[in-house]
């Protein structure tokens, strides 16, 4: 009964979403303030209905109601309850419900935190979001309904895929989807601005914090996915250039370009058409990702069960949304003003170069992901494009981006002076050189790639420390924007160092071990103490005990317990690797099959992975930076207190020292 109520709520929410998509916009066209004012309440109502449906489905999972098809396919009465809850987004139908739920979260947030935005703009923005919600709700109700009944009810569920029975499943999809869906806000703002013919700095200033928050979630979500794959799949990889991974990386790259481009539009009124295009592209790539993952068009370990009917629906939806946006863009963009001029060496130049490079990188990833499909569609054969391609093409494109992060943060708006930037490059340059040489010598070997990778990471890191220290010494206030920028840049630098370190210095050994045997990697000794059988809530497992010692010392620094689990519901055994994370490295052990022989022996995979923790630390730094930047006082004050004026004076041409972005500036403003 409750399930039917949930289903009904979902149908109602579709009707409300359609109204939300049409009525406020009609109100704008007809200058009817009443209709326009329905935008906020409709958005909130729509979300409440979806939230109710979501809650109903959660209850069905927690109660193990196997009369619901979706629950019976993805759950089991023995499943621990956190996984029962997370199983809601373990399959296609439920994950779409999560998508639409989070879209409601964002819409409601926009409805609630836009008190100072003109009503007709609010109406337009929420209308666009309502149209998107309608599309997804219609898709769910017609092709992917999680509320379908199974009669007679199954006595037991098929269980959640063991690979997903892990804390990673609980948090990775919601965070990632918050990012994907969040891009719809910047998109809606862009469309609203195009419709109104008002592409100005106010639009940019409204878009930026929303884009920053969405970017932060997306960063976190991608990082979590990487981390999850690393410890869950049992063989230490963390990025495979799989189509689904690429589908999350592309919006991230464009969103990064968008954030930087918005800076220019907000500050100088320039690049408006380009910024709008980036905003459209970011969300379009989110939608494209949805298509790629669920249509069966590409093979991927992450893909949901595919169905051509679903594929057609999403493709049509994608074509409509993006096609109409780009048509609107082609129509309106020529009318926007060009904004203020800029010198050849200026902050704008760096930010625009950043856009060009990141867009090219996105295109490279898109090309690599879709090339097999294009060649196959043209009946020219079947080929594969994998990590060798992406590594060769992507990394060189990122080198200039990372390099420019330092002078870019230093350059002044409109016209920067080389003499002003140069003093702040000397320390990072030499410090990075020493660091890079020293670290690679200490680690054991060096080549151009290693030296460059370490140098770039250190270059940005030292520059960030220096810029923060300089500001502190000057006694200048450090705004959320400034600190956020430095931390985010630092985070990326740490990731670069991590990638360089792990890819070039990791050691892997595949060995056969009996009780008492040991293997040595770097200075760490791994000794197998024993293997025993253990039982879990819905599995039984073999668990090995591996003691780790370091160097000459006899004391055990860590005991690792890798397992090989046999879930009751599945015939494939699952490897649960055991990892010891230190500051500089991970020690990673994976238990393999038992081997035939006189004495019991097991195949074990042992890894020494230096710098891996830096990958996750870097991501966390980027997330922290994004949060700090999103909640900069500039954005909070006008949004929360209703004070519009504070926003206005941060406009074109004023090079003020209390501007959190530029650095380190003398207090006298430019002429």
């Amino acid at each position, binding site marked *: 009964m409750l399930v039917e109520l949930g289903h009904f709520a979902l149908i109602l929410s579709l009707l409300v979403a359609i109204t939300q998509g049409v009525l406020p916009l009609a109100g704008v066209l007809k200058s009817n303030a009443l209709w326009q004012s329905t935008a906020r309440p409709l958005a909130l109502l729509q979300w409440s209905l979806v939230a109710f449906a979501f809650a109903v489905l959660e209850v069905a999972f927690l109660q193990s109601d196997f009369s619901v098809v979706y629950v019976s396919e993805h759950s089991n009465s023995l499943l621990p309850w956190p996984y029962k809850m997370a199983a809601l987004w373990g399959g296609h139908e439920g994950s779409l419900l999560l998508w639409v739920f989070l879209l409601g979260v964002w819409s409601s947030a926009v409805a609630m935190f836009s008190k100072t935005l003109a009503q007709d703009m609010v109406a337009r923005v929420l209308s666009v979001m309502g149209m998107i919600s309608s599309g997804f709700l219609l898709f769910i109700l017609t092709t992917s309904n999680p509320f379908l009944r199974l009669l007679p009810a199954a006595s037991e569920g098929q269980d959640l895929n063991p690979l997903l029975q892990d804390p990673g499943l609980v948090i990775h999809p919601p965070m990632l989807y918050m990012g994907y869906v969040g891009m719809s806000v910047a998109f809606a703002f862009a469309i609203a601005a195009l419709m109104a013919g008002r592409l100005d700095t106010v639009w940019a200033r409204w878009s930026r914090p929303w884009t920053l928050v969405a970017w932060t979630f997306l960063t976190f979500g991608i990082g979590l996915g990487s981390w999850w794959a690393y410890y869950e799949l049992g063989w230490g990889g963390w990025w495979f250039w799989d189509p689904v991974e690429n589908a999350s990386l592309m919006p991230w790259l464009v969103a990064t370009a968008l954030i930087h481009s918005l800076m220019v539009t907000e500050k100088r009124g320039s690049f408006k058409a380009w910024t709008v295009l980036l905003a459209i592209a970011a969300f379009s790539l989110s939608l494209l990702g949805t298509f790629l993952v669920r249509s069966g*068009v590409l093979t991927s370990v992450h893909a949901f069960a595919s169905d051509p009917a679903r594929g057609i629906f999403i493709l049509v939806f994608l074509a409509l949304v993006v096609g109409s946006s*780009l048509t609107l863009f082609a*129509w309106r963009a020529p009318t926007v003003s060009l904004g203020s001029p800029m010198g050849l060496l200026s902050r704008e130049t760096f930010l625009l170069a950043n856009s060009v490079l990141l867009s090219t990188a996105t295109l490279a990833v898109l090309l690599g992901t879709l090339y097999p499909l294009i060649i196959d569609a043209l009946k020219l054969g079947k080929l594969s494009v994998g990590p060798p391609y992406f590594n060769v093409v992507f990394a060189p494109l990122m080198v200039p981006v990372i390099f420019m992060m330092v002078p870019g943060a230093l350059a002044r708006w409109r016209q920067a002076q080389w003499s002003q930037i140069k003093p702040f490059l000397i320390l990072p340059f030499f410090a990075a050189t020493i660091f890079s040489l020293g670290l690679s010598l200490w680690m054991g070997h060096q080549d151009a790639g290693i030296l460059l990778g370490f140098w770039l990471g250190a270059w940005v890191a030292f520059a960030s420390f220096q810029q923060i220290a300089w500001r502190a010494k000057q006694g200048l206030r450090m705004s959320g924007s400034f600190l956020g920028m430095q931390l985010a840049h630092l985070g990326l630098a740490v990731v670069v160092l991590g990638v360089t370190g792990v890819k070039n210095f990791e050691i892997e050994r595949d060995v056969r071990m009996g009780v008492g045997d040991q293997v040595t990697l770097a200075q760490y000794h791994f000794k197998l103490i024993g293997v025993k059988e253990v039982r879990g809530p819905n599995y039984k497992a073999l668990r090995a005990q591996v003691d780790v010692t370091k160097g000459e010392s006899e004391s055990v620094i860590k005991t690792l317990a890798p397992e090989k689990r046999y879930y009751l519901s599945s015939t494939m055994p699952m490897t649960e690797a055991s990892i010891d994370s230190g500051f500089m490295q991970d020690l990673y052990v994976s238990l393999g099959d038992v081997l035939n022989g006189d004495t019991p022996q097991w195949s074990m995979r042992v890894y020494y992975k230096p710098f891996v923790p830096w990958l996750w630390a870097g991501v966390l730094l980027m997330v922290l930076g994004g949060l700090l930047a999103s909640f900069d006082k500039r954005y909070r004050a006008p949004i929360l207190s209703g004070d519009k004026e504070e926003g206005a004076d941060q406009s074109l041409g004023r090079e003020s020292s209390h501007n959190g972005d530029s650095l380190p500036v003398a207090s006298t403003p430019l002429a």
Partner: protein
Amino acid sequence: MIQKKFLIPLVLFLVLVVFLGVGLRRDPKEIPSPLINTAAPDFELPTLKGEGNFSPKAYLGRVWLFNVWATWCVSCREEHPVLVAFAKREGVPIVGLSYKEIQPSDEDKGPMSLESKLSLARARSFEWLKKHGDPYQLSVLDLDGRVGINYGVYGVPETYLIDTKGFIRYKHIGPVTPEVLAQEVMPLVHELQKEASTNSWPNTSRNAELAPSTPQSFAPSYALK
């Protein structure tokens, strides 16, 4: 007021949509064979009935089907009645390739000798063919899958059509259906038989690029006694 350059994103996007649309109809997991129109790789394998080894050279001068199957293969049960009916009706001989009949799970208790593998494979296959019908003139045993690899086998069932000169002319992936046999295989069979009788050489230069090195140079022949 539409300037040309602002239309570029839209145009590029529409091109993309067209490709994605076409892509929906394609199967990304189906791998076409580069061996079409090349010589069928030679081999020597023991037969099911144990009457000595078989090599495809024995079938030169005939048009025949080479069907990859195994008793552990579920889809093979689907296509088997079709093959049985086909064998009865048409005069096209079918040779079976029993692919990796002995699976890793058979060796759970311990490694098996070649003799025991052969006898277990034969026993299982005979039982299966008795139950489901036997469309094969003969069946050869590819226990370790090497001949399968030489033929580009990546799944079971798969079916090859080989012509009178010993060239692979067609490959079907997955279970054969009556439609496939009627619409694709039989017309080609007739064409090949006509070709053979008029002594014209098949056009084999077309896909030379796809098969740069003759598989035969790497294929050891297994003379399993």
